[in-house]
Protein backbone atom coordinates (compact mmCIF):
# COMPACT_ATOMS: atom_id res chain seq x y z
CA UNK A 1 0.00 0.00 0.00
CA UNK A 2 1.50 3.19 -1.21
CA UNK A 3 -0.09 5.20 1.54
CA UNK A 4 1.48 3.49 4.49
CA UNK A 5 4.85 3.22 2.78
CA UNK A 6 4.78 6.89 2.12
CA UNK A 7 3.84 7.81 5.63
CA UNK A 8 6.55 5.62 7.09
CA UNK A 9 9.02 7.57 5.07
CA UNK A 10 7.48 10.79 6.32
CA UNK A 11 7.93 9.59 9.81
CA UNK A 12 11.61 8.99 9.43
CA UNK A 13 12.49 12.31 7.93
CA UNK A 14 10.90 15.69 8.23
CA UNK A 15 10.36 17.66 5.05
CA UNK A 16 12.91 20.22 6.14
CA UNK A 17 15.45 17.53 6.65
CA UNK A 18 14.68 16.04 3.27
CA UNK A 19 15.20 19.37 1.52
CA UNK A 20 18.44 19.85 3.36
CA UNK A 21 19.59 16.37 2.46
CA UNK A 22 18.79 16.97 -1.20
CA UNK A 23 20.78 20.17 -1.23
CA UNK A 24 23.58 18.54 0.69
CA UNK A 25 23.50 21.28 3.30
CA UNK A 26 23.81 20.87 7.03
CA UNK A 27 20.59 21.30 8.96
CA UNK A 28 20.55 24.41 11.09
CA UNK A 29 18.92 24.18 14.48
CA UNK A 30 15.80 26.44 14.54
CA UNK A 31 16.54 27.38 18.16
CA UNK A 32 19.99 28.61 17.23
CA UNK A 33 18.66 30.44 14.19
CA UNK A 34 15.93 32.08 16.27
CA UNK A 35 18.45 33.32 18.81
CA UNK A 36 20.78 34.69 16.16
CA UNK A 37 18.19 36.30 13.92
CA UNK A 38 15.99 37.72 16.68
CA UNK A 39 19.02 39.55 18.03
CA UNK A 40 20.10 40.71 14.60
CA UNK A 41 16.69 42.10 13.57
CA UNK A 42 15.94 43.39 17.08
CA UNK A 43 12.37 42.20 16.96
CA UNK A 44 9.97 40.87 14.34
CA UNK A 45 7.37 43.60 13.83
CA UNK A 46 7.31 47.37 13.64
CA UNK A 47 4.81 50.17 13.01
CA UNK A 48 5.04 51.99 9.68
CA UNK A 49 2.76 54.79 8.34
CA UNK A 50 -0.08 54.19 5.91
CA UNK A 51 -0.53 57.85 4.87
CA UNK A 52 1.79 59.85 2.60
CA UNK A 53 4.19 62.25 4.26
CA UNK A 54 5.70 64.49 1.62
CA UNK A 55 6.54 67.45 3.78
CA UNK A 56 6.30 68.40 7.42
CA UNK A 57 3.22 70.45 6.50
CA UNK A 58 1.32 67.18 6.10
CA UNK A 59 1.44 66.76 9.83
CA UNK A 60 -1.10 69.58 10.14
CA UNK A 61 -3.53 67.13 8.54
CA UNK A 62 -2.48 63.94 10.30
CA UNK A 63 -1.85 65.70 13.55
CA UNK A 64 -2.82 69.03 15.06
CA UNK A 65 -4.58 71.26 14.15
CA UNK A 66 -6.41 69.18 11.51
CA UNK A 67 -6.81 66.07 13.58
CA UNK A 68 -9.00 67.89 16.15
CA UNK A 69 -11.89 67.92 13.67
CA UNK A 70 -11.65 64.13 13.39
CA UNK A 71 -11.56 63.76 17.17
CA UNK A 72 -14.70 65.88 17.50
CA UNK A 73 -16.50 63.62 15.02
CA UNK A 74 -15.47 60.50 16.89
CA UNK A 75 -16.47 62.12 20.19
CA UNK A 76 -20.03 62.39 18.84
CA UNK A 77 -20.04 58.71 17.88
CA UNK A 78 -17.28 56.49 19.28
CA UNK A 79 -18.00 53.83 16.62
CA UNK A 80 -16.58 56.28 14.06
CA UNK A 81 -13.17 55.35 15.51
CA UNK A 82 -13.50 52.28 13.25
CA UNK A 83 -13.85 54.58 10.20
CA UNK A 84 -11.46 57.45 10.88
CA UNK A 85 -8.59 55.52 12.44
CA UNK A 86 -6.82 52.21 12.04
CA UNK A 87 -8.81 50.78 14.94
CA UNK A 88 -10.72 48.52 12.53
CA UNK A 89 -7.51 46.64 11.78
CA UNK A 90 -5.83 46.79 15.20
CA UNK A 91 -5.56 43.63 17.26
CA UNK A 92 -4.28 43.45 20.83
CA UNK A 93 -2.36 40.24 21.51
CA UNK A 94 -2.87 40.03 25.22
CA UNK A 95 -1.09 37.62 27.58
CA UNK A 96 0.05 37.35 31.17
CA UNK A 97 2.73 34.85 30.16
CA UNK A 98 1.26 32.24 32.49
CA UNK A 99 1.34 29.31 30.06
CA UNK A 100 3.72 30.09 27.25
CA UNK A 101 4.03 27.31 24.63
CA UNK A 102 4.95 24.23 26.61
CA UNK A 103 7.23 26.30 28.82
CA UNK A 104 4.79 27.15 31.59
CA UNK A 105 4.60 30.37 33.60
CA UNK A 106 7.68 32.17 32.33
CA UNK A 107 6.35 35.70 32.76
CA UNK A 108 5.22 38.51 30.45
CA UNK A 109 8.66 39.60 29.21
CA UNK A 110 9.61 36.06 28.21
CA UNK A 111 6.34 35.72 26.33
CA UNK A 112 7.16 38.74 24.13
CA UNK A 113 9.12 36.78 21.48
CA UNK A 114 6.15 34.44 21.07
CA UNK A 115 3.64 37.30 20.88
CA UNK A 116 5.80 39.06 18.29
CA UNK A 117 5.82 35.86 16.27
CA UNK A 118 2.04 35.72 16.44
CA UNK A 119 1.85 39.36 15.36
CA UNK A 120 4.07 38.54 12.39
CA UNK A 121 1.84 35.64 11.32
CA UNK A 122 -1.20 37.88 11.69
CA UNK A 123 0.33 40.55 9.48
CA UNK A 124 1.52 38.11 6.85
CA UNK A 125 -1.42 35.72 6.61
CA UNK A 126 -4.26 37.98 7.68
CA UNK A 127 -3.10 41.54 6.98
CA UNK A 128 -3.90 42.30 10.62
CA UNK A 129 -1.98 44.97 12.55
CA UNK A 130 -1.39 43.03 15.74
CA UNK A 131 0.33 44.55 18.77
CA UNK A 132 1.99 42.27 21.34
CA UNK A 133 0.78 43.27 24.83
CA UNK A 134 2.19 41.06 27.59
CA UNK A 135 1.01 42.43 30.96
CA UNK A 136 1.97 41.97 34.59
CA UNK A 137 -1.37 40.93 35.94
CA UNK A 138 -2.24 38.95 39.02
CA UNK A 139 -5.30 36.82 38.67
CA UNK A 140 -8.08 36.80 36.12
CA UNK A 141 -9.80 39.93 37.48
CA UNK A 142 -6.78 42.09 36.70
CA UNK A 143 -6.59 40.72 33.17
CA UNK A 144 -10.30 41.36 32.69
CA UNK A 145 -9.96 44.92 33.99
CA UNK A 146 -6.97 45.60 31.77
CA UNK A 147 -8.69 44.27 28.65
CA UNK A 148 -11.77 46.34 29.42
CA UNK A 149 -9.66 49.45 29.80
CA UNK A 150 -7.71 48.92 26.58
CA UNK A 151 -10.79 48.08 24.47
CA UNK A 152 -11.12 51.59 22.89
CA UNK A 153 -7.75 51.24 21.12
CA UNK A 154 -8.48 48.00 19.32
CA UNK A 155 -10.83 46.33 16.89
CA UNK A 156 -10.37 42.95 18.57
CA UNK A 157 -8.43 41.23 21.35
CA UNK A 158 -6.51 37.98 20.97
CA UNK A 159 -5.78 36.21 24.26
CA UNK A 160 -2.73 34.02 24.10
CA UNK A 161 -0.91 31.61 26.37
CA UNK A 162 -2.98 32.14 29.51
CA UNK A 163 -3.14 29.24 31.95
CA UNK A 164 -6.22 27.06 32.36
CA UNK A 165 -8.70 27.37 34.07
CA UNK A 166 -8.36 31.14 34.45
CA UNK A 167 -8.37 31.48 30.65
CA UNK A 168 -12.00 30.28 30.61
CA UNK A 169 -13.11 32.89 33.10
CA UNK A 170 -11.22 35.64 31.28
CA UNK A 171 -12.60 34.71 27.87
CA UNK A 172 -16.19 34.19 29.02
CA UNK A 173 -16.22 37.39 31.02
CA UNK A 174 -14.69 39.49 28.22
CA UNK A 175 -16.99 37.98 25.62
CA UNK A 176 -19.84 39.18 27.77
CA UNK A 177 -18.46 42.62 28.65
CA UNK A 178 -16.70 43.96 25.58
CA UNK A 179 -18.19 45.24 22.35
CA UNK A 180 -15.22 44.06 20.29
CA UNK A 181 -14.44 40.43 19.47
CA UNK A 182 -12.30 38.50 21.95
CA UNK A 183 -10.49 35.38 20.82
CA UNK A 184 -8.48 32.90 22.84
CA UNK A 185 -6.43 30.94 20.38
CA UNK A 186 -5.71 28.01 22.68
CA UNK A 187 -9.46 27.56 23.08
CA UNK A 188 -11.36 28.75 20.00
CA UNK A 189 -8.50 28.50 17.51
CA UNK A 190 -7.63 24.96 18.41
CA UNK A 191 -11.28 23.97 18.80
CA UNK A 192 -12.12 25.50 15.41
CA UNK A 193 -9.44 23.63 13.53
CA UNK A 194 -10.20 20.41 15.42
CA UNK A 195 -13.83 20.75 14.36
CA UNK A 196 -12.83 21.35 10.72
CA UNK A 197 -10.60 18.27 10.70
CA UNK A 198 -13.24 16.22 12.47
CA UNK A 199 -15.97 17.21 10.00
CA UNK A 200 -13.88 16.03 7.06
CA UNK A 201 -12.72 12.87 8.85
CA UNK A 202 -16.33 11.98 9.58
CA UNK A 203 -17.24 12.76 5.97
CA UNK A 204 -14.47 10.48 4.68
CA UNK A 205 -15.59 7.67 6.95
CA UNK A 206 -19.25 8.24 6.04
CA UNK A 207 -20.40 9.36 9.44
CA UNK A 208 -22.49 12.23 10.70
CA UNK A 209 -21.42 14.37 13.65
CA UNK A 210 -24.80 13.99 15.36
CA UNK A 211 -24.54 10.19 15.29
CA UNK A 212 -20.90 9.88 16.33
CA UNK A 213 -19.37 8.80 19.60
CA UNK A 214 -16.34 10.92 20.36
CA UNK A 215 -13.77 10.66 23.14
CA UNK A 216 -11.55 13.54 24.22
CA UNK A 217 -8.33 12.71 26.04
CA UNK A 218 -7.07 15.63 28.11
CA UNK A 219 -9.29 18.28 29.64
CA UNK A 220 -7.20 21.42 29.29
CA UNK A 221 -8.09 24.60 27.44
CA UNK A 222 -8.03 23.04 23.96
CA UNK A 223 -10.22 20.03 24.67
CA UNK A 224 -12.68 21.84 26.95
CA UNK A 225 -13.16 24.37 24.17
CA UNK A 226 -13.32 21.61 21.55
CA UNK A 227 -16.01 19.85 23.59
CA UNK A 228 -18.06 23.02 23.86
CA UNK A 229 -17.68 23.73 20.14
CA UNK A 230 -18.53 20.25 18.81
CA UNK A 231 -21.61 20.29 21.05
CA UNK A 232 -22.58 23.68 19.57
CA UNK A 233 -21.95 22.20 16.12
CA UNK A 234 -24.51 19.46 16.70
CA UNK A 235 -22.96 16.54 18.58
CA UNK A 236 -25.34 15.48 21.37
CA UNK A 237 -23.36 16.14 24.57
CA UNK A 238 -24.14 12.68 25.92
CA UNK A 239 -22.21 11.06 23.06
CA UNK A 240 -19.04 12.82 24.14
CA UNK A 241 -16.74 11.33 26.77
CA UNK A 242 -13.89 13.28 28.35
CA UNK A 243 -10.93 11.54 29.91
CA UNK A 244 -8.27 13.27 31.99
CA UNK A 245 -5.41 12.17 34.21
CA UNK A 246 -7.93 10.89 36.77
CA UNK A 247 -9.89 8.84 34.24
CA UNK A 248 -13.27 9.24 32.62
CA UNK A 249 -15.07 12.42 33.58
CA UNK A 250 -18.43 11.58 35.12
CA UNK A 251 -20.64 13.25 37.71
CA UNK A 252 -19.78 10.76 40.45
CA UNK A 253 -16.08 11.44 40.46
CA UNK A 254 -14.65 12.33 43.85
CA UNK A 255 -13.20 15.60 42.54
CA UNK A 256 -16.54 16.93 41.27
CA UNK A 257 -17.00 19.43 44.10
CA UNK A 258 -13.47 20.65 43.68
CA UNK A 259 -14.18 21.15 39.96
CA UNK A 260 -17.41 22.96 40.78
CA UNK A 261 -15.42 25.52 42.74
CA UNK A 262 -12.26 25.65 40.65
CA UNK A 263 -13.14 24.71 37.07
CA UNK A 264 -16.83 25.11 36.45
CA UNK A 265 -16.33 24.58 32.70
CA UNK A 266 -15.07 21.07 33.27
CA UNK A 267 -17.74 20.56 35.93
CA UNK A 268 -20.48 21.50 33.46
CA UNK A 269 -19.08 19.06 30.91
CA UNK A 270 -18.94 16.32 33.54
CA UNK A 271 -22.64 16.84 34.15
CA UNK A 272 -23.80 16.88 30.56
CA UNK A 273 -21.45 14.52 28.70
CA UNK A 274 -21.12 10.76 29.03
CA UNK A 275 -24.77 9.63 28.96
CA UNK A 276 -23.68 6.05 29.57
CA UNK A 277 -22.06 7.15 32.84
CA UNK A 278 -18.87 5.33 31.98
CA UNK A 279 -16.21 5.25 34.66
CA UNK A 280 -12.63 4.05 34.48
CA UNK A 281 -9.77 4.67 32.12
CA UNK A 282 -9.28 5.50 28.44
CA UNK A 283 -9.66 1.83 27.46
CA UNK A 284 -13.22 1.88 28.79
CA UNK A 285 -13.98 5.20 27.11
CA UNK A 286 -12.85 4.26 23.60
CA UNK A 287 -14.86 1.06 23.35
CA UNK A 288 -17.16 1.68 20.40
CA UNK A 289 -15.89 5.22 19.84
CA UNK A 290 -15.60 6.66 16.32
CA UNK A 291 -13.05 9.33 17.07
CA UNK A 292 -10.45 10.01 19.75
CA UNK A 293 -9.13 13.53 20.10
CA UNK A 294 -6.09 13.71 22.33
CA UNK A 295 -4.67 16.99 23.56
CA UNK A 296 -3.08 15.67 26.72
CA UNK A 297 0.65 15.28 27.26
CA UNK A 298 3.62 14.67 24.97
CA UNK A 299 3.96 11.05 23.83
CA UNK A 300 4.79 8.76 22.27
CA UNK A 301 3.51 6.26 24.85
CA UNK A 302 0.47 8.11 26.19
CA UNK A 303 -1.94 6.07 24.04
CA UNK A 304 -1.29 2.34 23.66
CA UNK A 305 -2.00 0.57 20.34
CA UNK A 306 -4.17 -1.93 22.28
CA UNK A 307 -6.38 0.99 23.34
CA UNK A 308 -6.93 2.07 19.75
CA UNK A 309 -7.88 -1.47 18.74
CA UNK A 310 -10.98 -1.13 20.94
CA UNK A 311 -12.37 1.67 18.78
CA UNK A 312 -14.92 1.24 16.00
CA UNK A 313 -13.86 0.28 12.48
CA UNK A 314 -12.54 3.20 10.39
CA UNK A 315 -11.58 5.04 13.55
CA UNK A 316 -10.24 8.57 13.70
CA UNK A 317 -7.40 9.74 15.94
CA UNK A 318 -6.16 13.27 16.52
CA UNK A 319 -2.99 13.04 18.61
CA UNK A 320 -2.30 16.72 19.10
CA UNK A 321 0.36 16.94 21.78
CA UNK A 322 3.53 18.73 20.86
CA UNK A 323 6.35 18.21 20.28
CA UNK A 324 5.61 14.46 20.29
CA UNK A 325 2.09 13.16 19.61
CA UNK A 326 0.47 10.83 22.15
CA UNK A 327 1.29 7.92 19.83
CA UNK A 328 3.34 7.87 16.61
CA UNK A 329 1.02 7.94 13.55
CA UNK A 330 2.65 4.80 12.16
CA UNK A 331 1.83 2.86 15.33
CA UNK A 332 -1.71 4.22 15.39
CA UNK A 333 -2.32 3.09 11.82
CA UNK A 334 -0.86 -0.30 12.56
CA UNK A 335 -3.34 -0.54 15.42
CA UNK A 336 -6.12 -0.09 12.88
CA UNK A 337 -6.82 3.64 13.01
CA UNK A 338 -7.84 4.89 9.58
CA UNK A 339 -7.32 8.64 9.86
CA UNK A 340 -4.52 10.03 12.01
CA UNK A 341 -3.87 13.72 12.54
CA UNK A 342 -1.24 15.42 14.69
CA UNK A 343 -0.13 18.93 15.56
CA UNK A 344 3.03 18.56 13.51
CA UNK A 345 3.83 19.71 10.01
CA UNK A 346 6.09 16.75 9.24
CA UNK A 347 3.24 14.21 9.38
CA UNK A 348 0.13 14.15 7.21
CA UNK A 349 -2.94 15.98 8.55
CA UNK A 350 -1.56 18.81 10.62
CA UNK A 351 -4.20 20.31 12.90
CA UNK A 352 -2.82 23.81 12.92
CA UNK A 353 -4.34 26.94 14.50
CA UNK A 354 -2.67 29.06 11.85
CA UNK A 355 -5.25 27.75 9.40
CA UNK A 356 -7.93 29.55 11.30
CA UNK A 357 -6.93 32.45 13.52
CA UNK A 358 -5.65 34.91 10.89
CA UNK A 359 -8.80 34.59 8.82
CA UNK A 360 -11.28 34.56 11.70
CA UNK A 361 -9.80 37.82 12.95
CA UNK A 362 -9.63 39.20 9.39
CA UNK A 363 -13.32 38.37 9.03
CA UNK A 364 -14.50 39.99 12.26
CA UNK A 365 -12.35 43.07 11.71
CA UNK A 366 -13.63 43.61 8.18
CA UNK A 367 -17.24 43.82 9.36
CA UNK A 368 -16.28 45.61 12.61
CA UNK A 369 -17.99 42.84 14.52
CA UNK A 370 -18.86 43.23 18.19
CA UNK A 371 -18.07 39.59 19.01
CA UNK A 372 -16.92 36.18 17.76
CA UNK A 373 -19.79 33.87 18.62
CA UNK A 374 -19.44 30.09 18.41
CA UNK A 375 -21.59 30.17 15.26
CA UNK A 376 -18.88 32.21 13.51
CA UNK A 377 -16.18 29.73 14.55
CA UNK A 378 -18.33 26.87 13.30
CA UNK A 379 -18.75 28.74 9.98
CA UNK A 380 -14.97 29.11 9.79
CA UNK A 381 -14.48 25.38 10.47
CA UNK A 382 -17.14 24.46 7.92
CA UNK A 383 -15.57 26.70 5.28
CA UNK A 384 -12.15 25.22 5.98
CA UNK A 385 -13.56 21.71 5.70
CA UNK A 386 -15.54 22.55 2.55
CA UNK A 387 -12.45 23.97 0.88
CA UNK A 388 -10.91 20.51 0.84
CA UNK A 389 -14.14 19.03 -0.49
CA UNK A 390 -14.48 21.51 -3.34
CA UNK A 391 -12.17 19.96 -5.87
CA UNK A 392 -9.09 20.15 -3.67
CA UNK A 393 -7.38 17.14 -2.21
CA UNK A 394 -9.47 15.38 0.40
CA UNK A 395 -8.38 11.93 1.50
CA UNK A 396 -7.27 10.14 4.64
CA UNK A 397 -3.93 11.93 4.58
CA UNK A 398 -5.32 15.33 3.58
CA UNK A 399 -8.27 16.05 5.82
CA UNK A 400 -7.44 19.76 5.98
CA UNK A 401 -5.94 22.37 3.69
CA UNK A 402 -2.43 23.50 4.58
CA UNK A 403 -0.99 26.95 5.10
CA UNK A 404 0.22 26.74 1.49
CA UNK A 405 -3.40 26.96 0.32
CA UNK A 406 -3.44 30.74 0.47
CA UNK A 407 -6.96 31.03 -0.99
CA UNK A 408 -8.46 29.71 2.24
CA UNK A 409 -7.72 32.88 4.19
CA UNK A 410 -10.09 35.26 2.35
CA UNK A 411 -12.66 32.45 2.05
CA UNK A 412 -12.72 31.71 5.75
CA UNK A 413 -12.60 35.44 6.58
CA UNK A 414 -15.66 36.11 4.43
CA UNK A 415 -17.54 33.15 5.91
CA UNK A 416 -16.90 34.57 9.38
CA UNK A 417 -17.84 38.11 8.33
CA UNK A 418 -21.03 36.88 6.71
CA UNK A 419 -22.07 34.98 9.83
CA UNK A 420 -21.48 38.07 12.00
CA UNK A 421 -23.64 40.16 9.65
CA UNK A 422 -26.34 37.48 9.76
CA UNK A 423 -26.26 37.46 13.54
CA UNK A 424 -26.63 41.23 13.67
CA UNK A 425 -23.38 41.87 15.49
CA UNK A 426 -21.52 43.54 12.62
CA UNK A 427 -21.10 47.31 12.52
CA UNK A 428 -20.64 47.19 8.76
CA UNK A 429 -22.60 45.24 6.20
CA UNK A 430 -21.18 43.87 2.94
CA UNK A 431 -22.09 41.24 0.38
CA UNK A 432 -20.22 37.96 0.38
CA UNK A 433 -18.38 38.99 -2.77
CA UNK A 434 -17.36 42.30 -1.21
CA UNK A 435 -16.22 40.53 1.93
CA UNK A 436 -14.05 38.12 0.00
CA UNK A 437 -12.57 40.88 -2.13
CA UNK A 438 -11.94 43.07 0.88
CA UNK A 439 -10.14 40.29 2.76
CA UNK A 440 -8.15 39.32 -0.31
CA UNK A 441 -7.00 42.90 -0.94
CA UNK A 442 -6.03 43.57 2.68
CA UNK A 443 -4.06 40.32 2.93
CA UNK A 444 -2.42 40.81 -0.46
CA UNK A 445 -1.45 44.38 0.34
CA UNK A 446 0.23 43.25 3.50
CA UNK A 447 2.21 40.56 1.70
CA UNK A 448 3.13 42.96 -1.11
CA UNK A 449 4.38 45.52 1.42
CA UNK A 450 6.56 42.92 3.07
CA UNK A 451 7.86 41.77 -0.34
CA UNK A 452 8.69 45.37 -1.33
CA UNK A 453 10.51 46.05 1.90
CA UNK A 454 12.52 42.89 1.33
CA UNK A 455 13.21 43.69 -2.33
CA UNK A 456 14.50 47.12 -1.37
CA UNK A 457 16.55 45.55 1.47
CA UNK A 458 14.77 47.77 4.01
CA UNK A 459 14.19 44.35 5.50
CA UNK A 460 17.63 42.78 5.19
CA UNK A 461 17.88 39.25 3.81
CA UNK A 462 18.59 36.51 6.34
CA UNK A 463 21.37 35.18 4.15
CA UNK A 464 23.42 38.25 5.06
CA UNK A 465 23.44 37.35 8.75
CA UNK A 466 26.38 35.39 10.04
CA UNK A 467 25.02 32.35 11.83
CA UNK A 468 27.86 32.25 14.28
CA UNK A 469 27.21 35.86 15.30
CA UNK A 470 26.50 36.02 18.98
Amino acid at each position, binding site marked *: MARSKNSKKEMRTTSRKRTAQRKGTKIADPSQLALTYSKYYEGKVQIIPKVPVTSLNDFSIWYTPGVAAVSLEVAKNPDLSFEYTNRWNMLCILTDGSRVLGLGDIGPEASLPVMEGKALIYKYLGGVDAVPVPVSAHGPEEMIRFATQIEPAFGAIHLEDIASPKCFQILDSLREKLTIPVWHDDQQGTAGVILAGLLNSLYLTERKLKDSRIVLLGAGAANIAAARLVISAGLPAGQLVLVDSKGILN*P*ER*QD*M*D*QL*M*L*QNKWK*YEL*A*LKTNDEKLAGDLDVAVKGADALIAASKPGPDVIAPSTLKKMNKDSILFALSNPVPEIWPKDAREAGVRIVATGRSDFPNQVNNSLIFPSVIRGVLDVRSKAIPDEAIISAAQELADFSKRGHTLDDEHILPTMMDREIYPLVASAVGEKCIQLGIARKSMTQRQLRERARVVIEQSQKTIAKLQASKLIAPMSGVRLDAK
Partner: protein
Amino acid sequence: MSKKSSIESTNESARRQKADEGRKKPGVIIREIKRGEEESAGELIGRLKRLNGEFDPLLKTSSNLEAEARSSIKSAMSNKDSVVLVAVQEEIDKVVGVVKADLIDRVFYEPRKEGAIVEFYILPEFRRGDLGNKLLASMVDALKAKGAVLITAEFPSQNEIAKKFYTKLGFRSLTNVYAKSY
Protein backbone atom coordinates in the same frame (compact mmCIF):
# COMPACT_ATOMS: atom_id res chain seq x y z
CA MET B 1 -15.45 30.57 61.04
CA SER B 2 -18.57 28.64 60.36
CA LYS B 3 -21.91 30.34 60.41
CA LYS B 4 -25.31 29.33 61.57
CA SER B 5 -28.36 30.44 59.66
CA SER B 6 -31.80 30.17 61.10
CA ILE B 7 -35.47 30.49 60.33
CA GLU B 8 -38.54 30.26 62.52
CA SER B 9 -40.47 27.48 60.97
CA THR B 10 -43.97 28.34 59.86
CA ASN B 11 -46.49 26.78 57.58
CA GLU B 12 -44.17 27.98 54.83
CA SER B 13 -42.20 24.74 54.57
CA ALA B 14 -45.32 22.60 54.45
CA ARG B 15 -46.76 24.74 51.69
CA ARG B 16 -43.46 24.62 49.86
CA GLN B 17 -43.32 20.87 50.10
CA LYS B 18 -46.84 20.58 48.79
CA ALA B 19 -45.90 22.75 45.81
CA ASP B 20 -42.80 20.65 45.35
CA GLU B 21 -44.74 17.39 45.15
CA GLY B 22 -45.94 18.37 41.70
CA ARG B 23 -42.47 18.76 40.22
CA LYS B 24 -40.66 15.92 41.94
CA LYS B 25 -37.72 14.60 39.95
CA PRO B 26 -38.87 11.24 38.65
CA GLY B 27 -37.42 8.29 40.43
CA VAL B 28 -36.04 10.08 43.49
CA ILE B 29 -37.83 9.75 46.79
CA ILE B 30 -37.04 11.21 50.19
CA ARG B 31 -37.38 9.12 53.32
CA GLU B 32 -35.73 8.27 56.60
CA ILE B 33 -32.48 6.37 56.31
CA LYS B 34 -32.74 2.57 56.55
CA ARG B 35 -30.37 0.00 58.01
CA GLY B 36 -27.81 -0.96 55.40
CA GLU B 37 -27.58 2.56 53.98
CA GLU B 38 -24.97 3.76 56.48
CA GLU B 39 -22.18 3.04 54.03
CA SER B 40 -23.56 5.00 51.08
CA ALA B 41 -24.82 7.87 53.26
CA GLY B 42 -21.42 7.94 54.97
CA GLU B 43 -19.76 8.19 51.57
CA LEU B 44 -21.79 11.31 50.82
CA ILE B 45 -20.89 12.83 54.20
CA GLY B 46 -17.26 12.15 53.28
CA ARG B 47 -17.76 14.07 50.04
CA LEU B 48 -19.36 16.93 51.98
CA LYS B 49 -16.41 17.16 54.33
CA ARG B 50 -13.96 17.17 51.43
CA LEU B 51 -16.01 19.94 49.84
CA ASN B 52 -15.76 21.86 53.13
CA GLY B 53 -12.01 21.31 52.99
CA GLU B 54 -11.94 23.24 49.71
CA PHE B 55 -13.13 26.34 51.53
CA ASP B 56 -10.68 26.53 54.41
CA PRO B 57 -7.45 24.80 55.40
CA LEU B 58 -8.81 24.49 58.94
CA LEU B 59 -11.42 22.15 57.49
CA LYS B 60 -8.83 19.79 56.05
CA THR B 61 -10.28 16.30 56.32
CA SER B 62 -8.82 13.58 58.54
CA SER B 63 -7.27 10.40 57.21
CA ASN B 64 -10.03 8.16 58.59
CA LEU B 65 -12.78 10.39 57.21
CA GLU B 66 -14.88 7.66 55.61
CA ALA B 67 -14.99 5.47 58.72
CA GLU B 68 -15.83 8.44 60.96
CA ALA B 69 -18.59 9.53 58.58
CA ARG B 70 -20.09 6.03 58.65
CA SER B 71 -20.02 5.78 62.42
CA SER B 72 -21.51 9.26 62.84
CA ILE B 73 -24.45 8.18 60.65
CA LYS B 74 -24.77 4.96 62.63
CA SER B 75 -24.89 6.71 65.99
CA ALA B 76 -27.35 9.30 64.66
CA MET B 77 -29.64 6.47 63.57
CA SER B 78 -29.86 5.18 67.12
CA ASN B 79 -30.23 8.62 68.69
CA LYS B 80 -33.80 9.88 69.12
CA ASP B 81 -32.54 13.49 69.05
CA SER B 82 -31.09 13.11 65.55
CA VAL B 83 -32.78 12.84 62.18
CA VAL B 84 -31.17 11.44 59.04
CA LEU B 85 -33.07 11.66 55.77
CA VAL B 86 -31.90 10.35 52.43
CA ALA B 87 -32.84 11.01 48.81
CA VAL B 88 -32.93 7.68 47.04
CA GLN B 89 -33.06 6.91 43.35
CA GLU B 90 -35.92 4.45 43.39
CA GLU B 91 -35.24 1.98 40.61
CA ILE B 92 -31.71 1.23 41.73
CA ASP B 93 -32.12 2.02 45.43
CA LYS B 94 -29.14 4.34 45.38
CA VAL B 95 -28.59 7.07 47.96
CA VAL B 96 -28.03 10.34 46.06
CA GLY B 97 -28.53 12.84 48.87
CA VAL B 98 -28.36 13.00 52.64
CA VAL B 99 -29.33 15.47 55.34
CA LYS B 100 -28.67 15.09 59.05
CA ALA B 101 -29.97 17.26 61.87
CA ASP B 102 -29.80 17.27 65.67
CA LEU B 103 -32.35 18.52 68.15
CA ILE B 104 -30.85 21.02 70.58
CA ASP B 105 -32.31 22.34 73.81
CA ARG B 106 -31.43 26.04 73.95
CA VAL B 107 -31.63 26.46 77.71
CA PHE B 108 -30.89 30.19 77.67
CA TYR B 109 -33.13 31.21 74.81
CA GLU B 110 -36.61 31.05 73.47
CA PRO B 111 -37.83 29.26 71.54
CA ARG B 112 -35.96 26.47 73.25
CA LYS B 113 -36.20 23.65 70.73
CA GLU B 114 -33.78 24.05 67.83
CA GLY B 115 -33.41 21.71 64.89
CA ALA B 116 -29.81 22.08 63.75
CA ILE B 117 -28.98 20.87 60.24
CA VAL B 118 -25.36 19.77 60.44
CA GLU B 119 -24.86 17.73 57.25
CA PHE B 120 -26.41 18.30 53.85
CA TYR B 121 -25.10 16.83 50.61
CA ILE B 122 -26.52 15.95 47.19
CA LEU B 123 -24.58 14.28 44.38
CA PRO B 124 -23.74 16.80 41.61
CA GLU B 125 -25.97 15.37 38.90
CA PHE B 126 -29.03 15.55 41.17
CA ARG B 127 -28.48 19.13 42.21
CA ARG B 128 -30.30 21.16 39.66
CA GLY B 129 -33.79 19.82 39.91
CA ASP B 130 -35.51 20.84 43.07
CA LEU B 131 -34.10 18.11 45.22
CA GLY B 132 -32.22 20.46 47.57
CA ASN B 133 -35.38 22.38 48.40
CA LYS B 134 -37.37 19.19 48.83
CA LEU B 135 -34.81 17.52 51.03
CA LEU B 136 -34.65 20.61 53.24
CA ALA B 137 -38.44 20.92 53.38
CA SER B 138 -38.73 17.28 54.43
CA MET B 139 -36.15 17.80 57.13
CA VAL B 140 -37.92 20.92 58.40
CA ASP B 141 -41.13 18.92 58.68
CA ALA B 142 -39.40 16.05 60.46
CA LEU B 143 -37.83 18.46 62.96
CA LYS B 144 -41.11 20.25 63.50
CA ALA B 145 -42.73 16.91 64.22
CA LYS B 146 -40.16 16.49 66.96
CA GLY B 147 -41.09 19.86 68.41
CA ALA B 148 -38.47 22.18 66.87
CA VAL B 149 -39.70 25.65 65.99
CA LEU B 150 -36.31 27.11 65.12
CA ILE B 151 -34.31 25.56 62.33
CA THR B 152 -30.62 26.32 61.88
CA ALA B 153 -28.02 25.17 59.37
CA GLU B 154 -24.25 25.30 59.61
CA PHE B 155 -21.72 25.43 56.81
CA PRO B 156 -18.28 26.96 56.15
CA SER B 157 -18.24 30.77 56.03
CA GLN B 158 -16.73 30.72 52.56
CA ASN B 159 -19.45 28.50 51.10
CA GLU B 160 -21.28 31.08 49.01
CA ILE B 161 -23.46 28.43 47.39
CA ALA B 162 -24.90 27.36 50.74
CA LYS B 163 -25.27 30.97 51.81
CA LYS B 164 -27.30 31.71 48.69
CA PHE B 165 -29.39 28.57 49.12
CA TYR B 166 -30.47 29.33 52.68
CA THR B 167 -30.81 33.09 52.19
CA LYS B 168 -33.22 32.50 49.32
CA LEU B 169 -35.36 30.42 51.65
CA GLY B 170 -35.52 33.16 54.27
CA PHE B 171 -32.72 32.02 56.58
CA ARG B 172 -30.34 34.66 57.95
CA SER B 173 -27.03 34.61 59.74
CA LEU B 174 -27.50 34.07 63.49
CA THR B 175 -24.18 33.39 65.17
CA ASN B 176 -20.61 33.49 63.90
CA VAL B 177 -17.87 31.05 64.80
CA TYR B 178 -14.42 32.61 64.52
CA ALA B 179 -11.34 30.44 64.46
CA LYS B 180 -7.59 30.82 64.81
CA SER B 181 -5.08 28.01 64.97
CA TYR B 182 -2.19 28.15 67.43
